[in-house]
């Protein structure tokens, strides 16, 4: 009996040390095991979804690939952990995943009480409304008297109540527990309006029986900044994940694409030279704990931010989401990267 307790104690101690090591230097840990363990959505078209043969693709998946490319110069060195809304935080807290790229909203609670770090916002989202085109509704302010389908227990449900109340509009909520039930009820015509994060609406519209009969209203009634999250306590890893995003933005800003990245290395622009690590005595990559080729590797693997966006959720995808807030700051959006210097 005593022996068994001793074994358990030793086991616990060893495990404790193991977790400590993992949270201390995630980069070393990732390099040692040879891949990045990435927490993604269980299946949200455009953001993270596996195809028939189990290959993951999507906006968030490309971020996982970009991180792997920055470290290993190979975007395929990723293992994906599909997580539900409930499982995602424990998975990151326990060290089961190295980074969470799962259209997760950055809130103060998650940043502090849950023990995570957020910095770059890779997708500025917000709650929106979808209606049937036949209703001739042009704005959410015309929705008084409508039946609204919504998923229960979400911030969406609370935002909805606040929005209609503050605008003095009447509505009839139709709430379901599961996303599939909300979809089915809206598709069957039980409600006039469907509300959730706008990116989700674009993705869900594709699953309706006649996607072209539905339109998404321009209003956004809440702030939902989505971005990758890491555990607190490992600043180096936090920097790497953050700068992978900034590198993607910077590449788009410089006009560096997957196709022209090798050519751009010969650019005479010193900013571009510094960014791509071809400047003499460059230390930018090594200071991050990576090689000076890190930005080149990212762009070779997934392209720049604009390419990632277009391919997965933008004009080049079935979702056809407009850039909007996610355009570069120089083009009317708010996507902005600190200088690489």
């Amino acid at each position: 009996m005593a022996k068994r307790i001793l074994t358990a104690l030793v086991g616990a101690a060893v495990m404790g040390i193991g977790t400590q090591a993992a949270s201390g230097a995630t980069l070393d840990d990732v390099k040692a095991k040879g891949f990045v363990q990435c927490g993604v959505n269980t299946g949200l078209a455009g953001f993270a979804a596996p195809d028939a043969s189990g290959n993951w693709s999507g906006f968030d998946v490309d971020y996982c690939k970009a991180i792997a490319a920055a470290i290993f110069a190979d975007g395929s060195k990723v293992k994906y952990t599909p997580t539900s809304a409930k499982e995602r935080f424990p998975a990151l807290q326990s060290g089961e995943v190295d980074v969470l790229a799962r259209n997760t909203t950055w809130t103060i609670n998650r940043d502090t009480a849950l023990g995570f770090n957020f910095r770059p916002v890779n997708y500025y989202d917000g709650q929106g409304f979808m209606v049937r085109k036949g209703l001739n509704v042009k704005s959410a302010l015309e929705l008084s008297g409508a039946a609204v389908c919504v998923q229960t227990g979400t911030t969406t449900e609370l935002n909805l109540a606040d929005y209609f109340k503050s605008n003095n509009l009447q509505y009839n909520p139709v709430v379901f527990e599961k996303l599939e039930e909300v979809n089915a009820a809206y598709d069957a015509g039980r409600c006039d309006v469907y509300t959730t994060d706008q990116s989700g609406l674009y993705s869900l519209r594709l699953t309706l029986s006649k996607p072209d009969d539905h339109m998404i209203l321009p209003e956004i009634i809440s702030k939902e900044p989505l971005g990758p999250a890491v555990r607190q306590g490992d600043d180096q890893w936090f920097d790497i994940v953050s700068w992978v995003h900034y590198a993607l933005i910077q590449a788009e800003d410089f006009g560096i694409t997957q196709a022209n990245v090798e050519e751009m290395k010969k650019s005479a622009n010193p900013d571009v030279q510094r960014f791509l690590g071809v400047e003499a005595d460059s230390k930018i990559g090594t200071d991050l704990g990576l090689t000076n080729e890190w930005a080149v590797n990212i762009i070779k693997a997934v392209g720049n931010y604009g390419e990632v966006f277009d391919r997965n959720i933008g004009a080049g995808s079935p979702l056809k989401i407009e850039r909007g807030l996610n355009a570069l700051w120089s083009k009317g959006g708010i996507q902005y990267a600190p200088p690489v210097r």
Partner: protein
Amino acid sequence: MAIGVTTTPEKTKPSGSIINDPQVRGIFYQVLTLVVLAAFVYWVADNTIENLKRANIASGYDFLNGRAGFDVGQSLIAYTSDSTYQRALIVGLLNTLLVAVCGIFTATIIGFAVGIGRLSHNWLIAKLSLAYVEIFRNIPPLLVIFFWYSGVLAILPQPRESAALPLNMFLNNRGLAFPKPIFGDGSLYTVLAFVLAIVASFLLARYARKKQEATGQRFPVLWTSLGLIIGLPLLVFLATGSPITFDVPIAGKFNLTGGSVIGPEFLSLFLALSFYTAAFIAEIVRAGIRGVSKGQTEAAHALGVRPGLTTRLVVVPQALRIIIPPLTSQYLNLTKNSSLAVAIGYADLVAVGGTILNQTGQSIEIVTIWIVVYLSLSLATSLFMNWFNARMALVER
């Protein structure tokens, strides 16, 4: 400890120690089980409290006074997102009660009709009843609910093509809209007249029964009561200058506005629970009627009682004694099955509680409330049915 309990050594068997006394052993093991059980419960409770403290989760029921912040689609009482969580729970409880009471009422009627139908000499009625029972008894209740919900949504027209029914009622996939009465000044008298007419009808029925028992003369209770219940309020209504008006539903931008609406969620849940439970009640009724000895019917016939009266006055009262106890469990089942409402978005206690649970994270408190409420509902139903059963018991004269 167990040894100290036994203080009468003379009475134990002369040979062998107390340890081998089966009675002492029995008590010992019972005490041991009780202690282990109590320790387990204490351990679980203590662990839970400790873990909640460690996770900085506030426990207790204070959160019930907080602002709910969400809206509920169907509510019998005034409720907005500014109301408290407590009020939201009451809204859910009332919705549960509403669907349970309506369901029990309808299920009983359908169940009795089908149960008696199965014993009919008419081949078609008997076989149709058999088919009904076998279909609805063998499908899980959740599927019956989905069947009605998707059926209701698929068959009914969109709001702009609402089907007009008599009396200014409209049917579409947002539910059944009907005119809502608006009680103006003086309408109280009409309501009072209505209540008065009902009370009078009851008294009349009692008087008629006594008269028949005493003299054998019959009094037309049904027609008099109907005339009383309809005529008296109508007379008062006209006399006070028609104070009750109706808010008629009219076509709005999205849906009909005005009037009252019974949503498709309630309709489908109510229909599903009624039809499902009725299948079981039908079998109970059939068993109850079969359980009454054939001699009773024959005796009644021999006395010249007509077949319809034989069933009503001789067979059913005796069958009820067999029917009521299993009927109680069906009523309890129906009430508990109403929690499946969450699947189709009917705002019952479980659905509303689940929302609150998600918003506040007070899972233990919410689950406790669920348990206490359903337990109370079930116990109340049982108590009522036990009372009814005692009343129906055979009174030997």
